[in-house]
């Protein structure tokens, strides 16, 4: 219990510190580290998700039409709703946790254990500035970009490949998609993915910089904790968003019924 409270306090402090120090991104080595993070988290991850994201759209349309006995109009609406609001940001967050969260927490734990963070301190380099801020900012941008990329691929895949399994043409599906699309879907998913990126990066940085002990055995423990906590944070944020948006938009504010 005490450890959990300490972790929450540490995580909040780290997040506030990172958020308050964003101007340090102007410093050349911090900017370089930020760009490196965007590249490794976003760009290199993008190649691996092409096929999976494309098939996701087909799967959603096929299942909707088969299980719900829906027409193409409803199928496209559900594709939009599911891909843009839920699956897109969640899929991107999952990829980020598995690829970058693990790497980031292990790298930082190794730096802490091998005394590299101490070396930075002796060089009067602030750890938040050099290690945390570029990673948090980089992962946030990369998560938003990857989310958009996955959404675009899933929708495009759904529209391109669905005509092979359902009775609707590409143009018909595309027309319905553009009719149903609202900018809110886009903003919603971008805000959510930025928050996912922030939570994942902050959690991984926190655990990486605070290993349970300073031996090599601590690295796998750090990675496990970072990944578990990142996943929990992402699911919690997703639940809060779903409650706020769907609760207010569709059902009004939740009221107790007597």
């Amino acid at each position, binding site marked *: 219990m005490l450890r959990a409270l300490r972790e929450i306090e540490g995580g909040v402090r780290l997040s506030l510190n990172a958020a308050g120090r964003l101007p340090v991104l102007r410093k050349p*080595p911090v900017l370089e580290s930020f760009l490196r993070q965007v590249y490794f988290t976003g760009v290199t991850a993008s190649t691996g998700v092409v096929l999976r994201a494309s098939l996701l759209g087909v799967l959603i349309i096929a299942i909707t039409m088969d299980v719900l006995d829906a027409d193409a109009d409803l199928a496209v609406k559900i594709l939009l709703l599911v891909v843009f609001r839920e699956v897109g940001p969640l899929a991107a967050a999952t990829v980020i946790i598995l690829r970058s969260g693990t790497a980031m927490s292990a*790298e930082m734990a*190794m*730096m802490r254990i091998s*005394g590299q963070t*101490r070396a*930075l301190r002796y*060089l009067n*380099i602030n750890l938040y*500035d050099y290690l945390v801020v570029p990673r948090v900012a980089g992962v946030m941008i990369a998560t938003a970009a990857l989310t958009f990329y996955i959404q675009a691929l899933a929708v495009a895949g759904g529209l391109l490949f669905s005509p092979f399994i359902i009775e609707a043409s590409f143009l018909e599906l595309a027309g319905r998609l553009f009719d149903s699309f609202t900018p809110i879907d886009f903003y919603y998913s971008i805000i959510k993915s930025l928050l996912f990126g922030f939570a994942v990066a902050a959690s991984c940085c926190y655990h990486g910089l605070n290993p349970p002990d300073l031996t090599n055995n601590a690295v796998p423990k750090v990675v496990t904790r970072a990944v578990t906590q990142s996943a929990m944070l992402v699911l919690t944020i997703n639940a809060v968003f779903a409650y706020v948006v769907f609760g207010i938009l569709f059902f009004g504010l939740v009221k107790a019924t007597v």
Partner: protein
Amino acid sequence: MSAQSAARPEAPEAKAAARMALRYARHGDREMAIAVPMGSVRRLEFPDRESKSAFVTAVLKARCEANEELELFGQPVRNLSGGARQKLRARLGALSPIVGLINNLNAWENISLPAAYHGKPPLAEVAVITQEVLDAFGVEPRIFLARVPDELGKLERKIAAFARLMIAGPELAIIESLDEGLSRAECARVAGFEQAYRRRHPAGTLIFVDIREES
């Protein structure tokens, strides 16, 4: 400062303290007292690893334990404020295992990192100093600077750390266990560090720290 006190000549002890780059004393089991004048080169030998590491850590952190006393540039560090301590630390530098290289940066990025982060000296000057150091030790820059620390030998790592130290240009530099892990031929090469440092920082204070070898 009042006019009266400003007019009064400085006490001889205060003058002497101001001319000292470092005064360190340790009480308890292993008593020791060290005084290093400004601009000098000193070789200090400690009886064991713990006392050596306690000394280096105290100086680099500008902070001392209850059983230690430390003055840097005539200023006792015990009750310093955070800002004053930071200012004092900016005047210190070290080539030491505790201020090692960063593993995911290549040699050039390691050497230029503090300058790039703090914005001084300019990168053009960093390049000149680096070239000077590499020339002095006969290292081919193109291959050396592109390598990450794991691809460098022990001597090369020390040269990279030394170049970083030269760029920072501290008023007081500590070089810890310089010969550790080096062959006899390599030891002869790193002996040139003192000359190279002196050439660029003639007024700087250099302290070599090592463990006394029991015969």
